[in-house]
């Protein structure tokens, strides 16, 4: 099993969700996060004066998928979250040791 952690633009969430759904990937956790990359944030203005918003609002999607689906899911997210501008986000893939479904006690890939 692999965990996909995708940090994307908040406004792209619906598009990414729909694209995953079309390929039958429904389970996910979504959280609103703030963060920054190499650019150290983004510039905004207040009363005309610019100031640095160091931590930019982003959305993080977390999904745990079967090993063989991981590459495909990453590709779906990459394609649907893409704008080509700075701030499109990143996708991380992590190994998962175990999964347990609380209701039935199923283990491993059956619990996904």
């Amino acid at each position, binding site marked *: 099993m692999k965990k996909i952690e995708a940090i994307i633009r908040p406004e792209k969430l619906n598009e990414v969700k729909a694209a995953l759904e079309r390929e039958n990937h429904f389970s996910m956790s979504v959280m609103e996060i703030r963060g920054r990359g190499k650019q150290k944030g983004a510039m*905004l*203005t207040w*009363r005309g*004066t610019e100031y640095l918003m160091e931590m930019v609002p982003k959305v993080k999607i977390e999904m745990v998928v079967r090993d063989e689906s991981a590459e495909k899911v990453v590709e779906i997210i990459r394609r649907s979250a893409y704008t080509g501008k700075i701030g499109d986000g990143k996708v991380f893939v992590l190994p998962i040791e175990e999964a347990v479904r609380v209701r039935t006690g199923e283990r491993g890939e059956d619990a996904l």
Partner: protein
Amino acid sequence: MDRGSKMGQNELDGGRRERPNAAIRCLEHSILKCPGRENDDGYELSLKRFIPVVLLLLTLVTLTLIPDVMAGDPSGAKTLEENSRAPVDYVWVLMSGFLVMFMQPGFAMLEAGFSRAKNVTNVLMKNLMDFSAGSLVFFAVGYAIMTGTPAFFLTGDAYDVDTVLNWFFMMVFCATAATIVSGAIAERPKFSMYLIYSVVICAVIYPIYGHWVWGGGWLSSSSFMIDLGGGYGALDFAGSGVVHALGGFVALAACMLLGPRIGRYDSGGKPIPIPGHNISLAALGAFILWFGWMGFNPGSTLSAHELRISIIAANTTLSAAAGAMASMSITWTKFGKPDIVMTINGAIAGLVAITAPCAWVAPWAAVLIGIVAGFVVCYGYWFLERNGMDDVVGAVPVHGFNGIWGLIALGLFADGTYGNSAVEGPLVTGLLYGNPGFFACQLISAAVISIWAFGTGYLLFYTLKRTVGIRVSPEEELMGLDISEHGIVTYPDFVYTEPARPARVIRMSEAPSSDEDENGNEPGTEGD
């Protein structure tokens, strides 16, 4: 008291060093209970405990000294008999007064929106209390000073429907002046000091200048000013000077003595913006203020029989709209994007500037006055900002500078179509219509209000700075005034809406202990 005066100096200095520690501990332990705070502030609390008692006693003693002669008309029967046109005027003045009162939430929302989330409770508390303290003080002494009558506590002759109507309308204006300062000095003043300020401005600073212009004082009624103006002295229809310039210049003095918020300027003195936490609230506040101004200006005819009210209402809105347009255009051309913060300030600047001239100028002049107001507020704000003045909501340029501009604009644009709150002459005429004398009257009034408000404001805040202190400690400021001054948070991140664990365990968890109770059970299992 003896103990207090002897220990005062040491305790005040020591207290300021101690308090932040107590407040930080309070954050670490629990936000709601402040262990250690009572001990550290023991001296202050012991004095504070007596304040309400002393106030109550003073009030009672004063009240018994005043004979309750029923020379007025407390029932209103006589007034109605003498003037059958009174009811519609009463309704007009009261409805307008209610609208002016509704400007208080406008100010509160505007200031709350432009402040950071950690200071919102403090901002709201200041707005709530300057109105409450201010109206009581204006009832006790302010109104008597303003009108030059012995109407203290509205007793004796003042216990009369006409007088009290007048008092109510004047009181909401007085409270407006008081609340202007709150926004300029948001996010760093001591709350206790702000209460004292509210009392002083409503008891003395506002009523004295108000008397000079609206109470038959020298600016409006001395023979010198009346000769100069050509039948009338300095005028201020609804209070560009009396209310707004007064509040604005007191705010300037307070800003200077308080200093900027921590982090407002970098080490080289370059201003760094501190964005407010909620533009929706700020915009709502601006709209409420705009709406409330429909009582502020037209209501100041004090009579529904003055049909000039339609023109006053139109002028009021036109000037605000022009002010917003001007500010938006300035920020758009200067920075490439229209800035809502400055645009909000621009709309209110237009309202402030039209407040004095609204009854005496034509609608086209109201538009011009608003456009100039938009420029005054933008460049006024940036000028102050460059000079180290941290005015959180822009109260000084909005109310102070544009209050002055309103007085001058009246001297320029008054077109001789309306008299001094009357259709009969002498009709009020400004410089552009051939009356330089009246323009001079307005310049004198503008000079007097800026000197009076800034001078008394500076004296007041300087005295407070030297005695009770006007600013919280840096630690308290960084933590936010909500917690350090009020022990509450405006937006709790995470609250239980029902007890998730037995209350006994929650109480115990204040002490450093495990989540398990004495039987070794998991918390929460007991009641299942």
